[in-house]
């Protein structure tokens, strides 16, 4: 089973689509020291998360290293319906990317 980089729960809550997501990422601040070598572990964190629905951008999150490891993100938006697809993608400071789709239940 491939490691799931982005887990999404998308549900209609009345007229609003409630999105909850959990992303797999070390979110290293660059301030932590490796206990063995004493050297600083380089900063490695998600810088931008984008959620789209029907081709429209619903949310853009600009993140810094102060977001916790394996980040959780929840938000809500109107104008969606059960069965609609959404996409959540992220890019980090090293240029790595991940993307996942989910259907609103």
């Amino acid at each position, binding site marked *: 089973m491939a490691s799931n980089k982005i887990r999404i729960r998308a549900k209609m809550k009345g007229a609003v689509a409630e999105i909850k997501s959990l992303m797999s990422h070390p979110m290293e601040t660059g301030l932590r020291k490796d206990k063995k070598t004493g050297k600083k572990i380089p900063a490695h964190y998600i810088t931008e998360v984008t959620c789209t629905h029907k081709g*429209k951008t619903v949310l853009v999150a600009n993140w810094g290293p*102060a977001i916790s490891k394996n980040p959780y993100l929840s938000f809500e938006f*109107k104008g969606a319906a059960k069965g609609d697809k959404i996409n959540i993608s992220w890019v980090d400071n090293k240029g790595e990317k991940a993307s996942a789709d989910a259907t609103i239940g």
Partner: protein
Amino acid sequence: MKRRTFLKGTLTGSMLGVAASAGLLAPRMVLAAWPKAAFGSKDVNGALTGLYNSTDTKMSNDVKIKAPDIAENGAVVPITISTSMKADSMSILITKNPNPLSCSYTLGDTTEGFVSCRVKMGKTSDLIAVVKSGGKLYSAKKTIKVTIGGCGG
């Protein structure tokens, strides 16, 4: 002679093409580059200037912060910021972190003023939520006590 005219014509044509596509490419929600100056700022005012070009914030009861009074683990502090105003942007700043700006959200037209995430706090500090609505900045503040700091190192 003919070649020069031909090349000149081609260049003009392609430049028009670039201009047209640039115009067409302007998305409704402009995806700005990652706000480096804001995230790199060591103080709240610097972060706000970098984000919104202003430090003029007004305390508002309509900017709500849901967060623990005491964070057991500074590495994972759950925060929810919300507002009933029509928000274009919401940001979270942690005053005593090395770089106060932790995150900033740009909301779409139909997106609710509600964001929930988890942040790292180095020590007991004020958490400031800033909401941009109608061209103005509104804020709320909450002190969160941290027993075990979350910045590591």
